[in-house]
Every structure is written in C-alpha cells, then in structure tokens.
C-alpha cells in the first residue's frame, strides 16, 4: 500500500489517519460520557486528564491530516449521481469542522472552568479564556451537544459508505479500508 493516494485508492497515510481518528473520536466521546458519572476521587481526576490528552491528540492529528491532505491527492469519486457526490463532499467538510470544534470546545470549556490542562503529564497548555463559571456551563452543553450531533453525521456518513458497498457494489468503502482489494470495474464504467 503506497503511502500517497492514487487516482482510485486512498494511500496508507490517509487510511491510517482516517481510522485512527475515527476510533479516537468515538472512543473519547463514549469515555467522556462515562467519566462524568464517576464518583469524585483520584480515579475521576485521572480519567478527565486522559480524556483531555486524547482530545488534544485528535487536534494534533487533525492538523497533520489537513496538511497531508493538502500535499496528497484525493482519489477521484467513484461513479455516482452528482447529488450523492455533492452530499458526500459536504458531509466530509462538516466532519472536518467537527473534528476541530470538539477538542477546541473542550479546551475552551476547560479554560472557563479554570482547570489545568496537561498533555499526558508531560507539559501544560495555556488557557484559551479567562475563568468564568457561568460561561463554562454553556460551553459544557456545547461540547456535549457537538458530540451527539457528530454521532448523527457519522452514522449518515458510515451508512452511506455501507450503502455504496452493499448495493452499488462500488469501491467507495473498499478504497478506504486497510488491506482490502478493490473490486474490478465493469467495462464501460471507466471514463
């Protein structure tokens, strides 16, 4: 698997970043929902610290991903109706925005709470806003809501990929999966 993408296939780097981040984002969100229910104590403090560190990792990976995407090429869309490819591109844009908004809203909320922000016990990051308890409640709601909305968009996104795979029987899903072999195109499909 080449590291760079081709006309028909996502490269290793794009695949790695896509699946690593998908796992980290969904996992960190579920972890976030669980950790807020934990009883007060050191376990909870450590869980919060881990949640923030994973979230910051997502933010760092996003910057890497956007830079890579700039440098890399994007495979041509699989043959599909124009509205579908427009919807797909729109969804991808929205997903990129969420990948930025989620960790950023967490960071802002954390600053408004006046909590420290430490990356895996290695170094601290500055606050993005002055402490403000009232606004922190608002930011908390925003942070959680963003996750639920992201989940809906991801379900639509993954659902669409599955529909293409199962019913259109094209390579939309396969070309993003690691280790998958592409289906041979029926003759006449290729431009």
């Amino acid at each position: 698997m080449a590291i760079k993408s081709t006309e028909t296939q996502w490269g290793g780097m794009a695949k790695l970043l896509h699946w690593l981040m998908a796992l980290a984002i969904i996992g960190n969100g579920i972890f976030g929902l669980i950790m807020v229910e934990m009883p007060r104590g050191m376990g909870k403090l450590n869980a919060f610290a881990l949640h923030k560190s994973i979230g910051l990792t997502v933010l760092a990976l996003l910057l890497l991903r956007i830079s890579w995407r700039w440098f890399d090429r994007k495979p041509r869309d699989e043959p599909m109706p124009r509205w579908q490819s427009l919807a797909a591109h729109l969804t991808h844009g929205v997903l990129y925005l969420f990948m930025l908004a989620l960790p950023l809203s967490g960071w802002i909320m954390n600053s408004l709470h006046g909590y420290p922000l430490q990356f895996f016990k290695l170094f601290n990051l500055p606050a993005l806003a002055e402490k403000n308890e009232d606004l922190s409640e608002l930011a908390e709601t925003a942070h959680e809501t963003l996750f639920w909305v992201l989940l809906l968009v991801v379900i639509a996104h993954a659902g669409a990929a599955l529909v293409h795979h199962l019913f259109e029987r094209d390579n939309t899903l396969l070309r993003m999966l690691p280790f998958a072999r592409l289906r041979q195109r029926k003759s006449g499909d290729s431009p």
Partner: protein
Amino acid sequence: MKPVACLLSLLFLSSPLLAADYTMGKGSTLGFTGTFQGEAFKGRFGDFQAKISYDPADLASASFDVTVHLASANTGDTDRDESLPGSDFFNITKFPTAHFVTTRFREEGGKVIAEGTLDLKGVSKPVNLEVTFAPREGGATLDVSARLNRLDFGIGSGDFADTSTIGAEVTVNAHLELESKT
C-alpha cells in the same frame, strides 16, 4: 540579701527588655500554593490567630504562636474546596486546627530563620520559616514563608498521595500587619 537581688534582677529583666509584643491587625493573610496537574494553585485560610513577639535586636526572646482553623481553607475551586475538609486531606472533624510555635530563631546569610514545630493532622514536625520584618509607625509588617512536604503530614492520603498529579511541595506564606501592644 541574695533572694532580694534575685527578685530585683527579675523585675529589671522582665517587661522593658522583652521583645515587642504585637497583635494581628487588619490586612493580615495566610496563604499556600500547591500544584495540581502541573499547574500552581493558591489557597487561603480566612480564619487564623497569631501571637507575635519580635525584636530584631533580641531574637533570643522572639516567639511566634499561630493557630489555623482548617475549615476556613479556600482555593477558589468548588470541587477542591469540598474535598479539603475530608479525611483524605485535613480531616477537620478529628483535627480542626493546625498549630505552629517557634522553638528558636537564628540568622543565616543575612536572613532570619524561625525554627519551630508544626502540628497538623495529628503529626508534629519541625518546620522553618524565613522571616522578613519591617517596623512601621505603631507596629510592623511581618512576612514569613515556609516550604513543606504535604505527605509529611498525610495531606492527601490513599490515591491522593500520587505526587505526579498533586505535587508534594506546598509553600506557605503569611503577611501580617502587626499592631504594637500598648
């Protein structure tokens, strides 16, 4: 003759030659600085009393005696302030106050060090203060600071003893506005 001389000298030696006595005035503060997840946080004890006897020219007779009501600790974070009185931290139901009393004063490199004993959460340990004293009209200002290891006194026990999250070292500092006793 002998007993009389003794009495006389005692009288003579007492009040006027003793170090100046002070009461604590408005604007006096007692604070501490700890670290949590790599970031410093400040706290204050709103309720404490200090009996100060101090004359820079007569350190041998100086003394500090401070009592701190631990329930008055405030660090500006609700979660943390609700945890401090509990048994893992100050355990105020069993040990409501901390007490510090000096045993000896000495000079070291132009600085005055007050040696004393801190009694906190059932543990008595020696603690040294660095003393800065400045006389002023009708009184003086006194600044002291000390560094201590919270684990010496069992502050943050069990899981909370983890110093990679809650730093071991705590700085305590007090600023006292002293009024002369007359």
